[in-house]
């Protein structure tokens, strides 16, 4: 158990800057996700913490101790890779025991720890199985167990669920969440899947192009994105422009209170989530629009509405709407999020 601090971390890989000036503090017992599209530098960052890549600049502290000059095997941070990488020449129990044997642990104590971990990862009774006799989900659990049995200060998970199918992935997420809650092991979880990050972690770090864009609780990132790119990453697609005057954001589609935004008369961008826009066929609302396209997506229907020169995307449970229909829309003021900093063009 321990905390993890990354200070001004910059990493170059193959002559290219992959991560620049990254800062993060993970508290003891916390589960933090590193979220970002593929190629954002998430895995590189994880490998730097594990000691498999040397950062160009910056410091890494595990459990209050700088690990800059420590070899990977001495860092007390264990990484679980995207591929399970189970040793095919060892059986399940031997794979799990690998790390313990490297630390020269042996005997009955080891056996008991392996039994405990098999139980925790729901693998009881599979200890003698060969690796190729296991299903994909079981292999992933063995890979997790192999790291957990070492009780590292920091557990580093690199997209451990991305090779599983949807149902299995959901089960594994819950399992990882349960295990983390039970063992209170400090965990850094890398994923490109925003739903996974929001569901599994206490805090989410959004990484775009090697830079930290926003850190916060899942709800904060989802509802209070720092800028348009963060909003876009979480599926935000409605951006409106307006001017702030006397603490009110005014646009052609509606107004919203903006007490914390400074700068009278400045052009600002705001966003509203597609599921927050209200849609009506009656004259209840006053913004006119025409449906351009509808897309049935199961639990909701995605509707593109043309209003003046702007196209809004609306998620609604009403699936009787047809393209070409005239509708009225309403942007509830309390759902409009005004970006604190102007980011230029939208």
């Amino acid at each position: 158990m321990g905390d993890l601090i990354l200070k001004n971390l910059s990493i170059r890989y193959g002559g290219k800057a992959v991560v620049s000036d990254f800062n993060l503090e993970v508290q003891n017992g916390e589960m933090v996700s590193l979220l970002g599209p593929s190629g954002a530098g998430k895995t590189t960052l994880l490998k730097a913490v594990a000691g498999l890549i040397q950062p160009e600049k910056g410091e890494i502290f595990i459990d209050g101790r700088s690990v800059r000059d420590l070899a990977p095997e001495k860092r007390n941070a264990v990484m679980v890779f995207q591929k399970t990488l189970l040793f095919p020449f060892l059986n399940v129990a031997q794979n799990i025991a690998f790390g313990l044997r490297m630390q020269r642990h042996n005997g009955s104590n080891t056996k008991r720890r392996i039994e405990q971990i098999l139980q925790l990862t729901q693998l009881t009774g599979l200890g003698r199985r060969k690796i190729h006799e296991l299903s994909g989900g079981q292999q992933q659990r063995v890979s997790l167990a192999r790291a957990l049995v070492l009780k590292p200060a920091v557990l580093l998970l690199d997209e451990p669920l991305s090779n599983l199918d949807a149902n299995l992935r959901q089960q594994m997420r819950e399992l990882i969440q349960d295990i983390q809650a039970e063992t209170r092991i400090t965990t850094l979880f890398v994923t490109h899947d925003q739903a996974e990050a929001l569901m599994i972690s206490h805090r989410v770090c959004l990484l775009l192009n090697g830079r930290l864009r926003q850190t916060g609780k899942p709800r904060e990132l989802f509802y209070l994105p720092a800028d348009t790119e963060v909003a876009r990453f979480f599926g935000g697609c409605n951006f409106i422009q307006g001017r702030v005057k006397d603490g009110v954001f005014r646009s052609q589609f509606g107004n919203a209170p903006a007490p914390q935004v400074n700068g009278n008369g400045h052009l600002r961008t705001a966003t509203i989530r597609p599921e927050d826009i209200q849609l009506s066929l009656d004259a209840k609302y006053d913004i006119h629009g025409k449906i351009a396209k509808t897309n049935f997506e199961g639990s909701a229907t995605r509707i593109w509405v043309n209003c003046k020169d702007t196209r809004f995307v609306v998620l609604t449970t009403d699936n009787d709407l047809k393209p070409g229909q005239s509708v009225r829309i309403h942007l509830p003021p309390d759902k409009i999020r005004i970006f604190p900093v102007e980011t230029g063009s939208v």
Partner: protein
Amino acid sequence: MRSLKRNIISTAVITTVALPFTILIIWSFSNRWFYPELWPRQWGLRAWDYVFGTAGYQIIGALVQSMLVALATALISVAIGIPAGRALGLYDFRGKDLISVILTLPVIVPPLCVAMGLHFWFIKMGLASTFSGVVLVHLTFCLPYSVFVLWGVFSNYNPDYEEQARSLGATSWKVVARVMLPLTFPGIMVAALFSFLLSWSQYLSTLIIGGGKITTLPVLLFALMGSGDRPVAAAVSIVFVVPAFVALLFSARYLGGKSIAGIR
């Protein structure tokens, strides 16, 4: 269709392997067998008696000598082949194509040229007529095969296993011993077998560099062949083939594409 295929395979095996062997065995158990006759005129154990009796010590000595040379050659060629194959299979660097050409050279150039040329230098360096000299000249023929086999093994090898092992607490030496060697073991066995068999059957280079001092089994075999005693030569040939055959059987499960392919 299937039975036809099976017939072709069994015919091929019989004509290329079993038939020459049968004749060899018949020769070794005959006392007199003249050309146009289909069957030996007189059967007998004279040849085997010679092999185990009269020349027993000589043959056992040659057997041990051959075994030592072949084992040393196989061991060294694998020990050099692993790092070389790893470098060629996993990393990209300048001159990689040139290296593959240089590696094939000893295979292309006739052994006689290599052995004659090296003999001159080995005399100067005091390596002629020594055990290490013979092992060294065998290595010139074995190394290319061993490096090529291990090059193939390592180009299919996933180095992520090593990072995983490091992260689980293995030192770099333990990664080699506990992860890399077990993962590539089948391929290493194939490379070792190739080198062993190649060294086992070397005649010309052993004769030239060994100068008659290092008497391996092929050297002794040719001497006996020269004496014109066919039954004895046949018996010695069988003694010569058996260890190589045993080595092949021992490593048969590692042969085939699967082992060379390694693990991804």
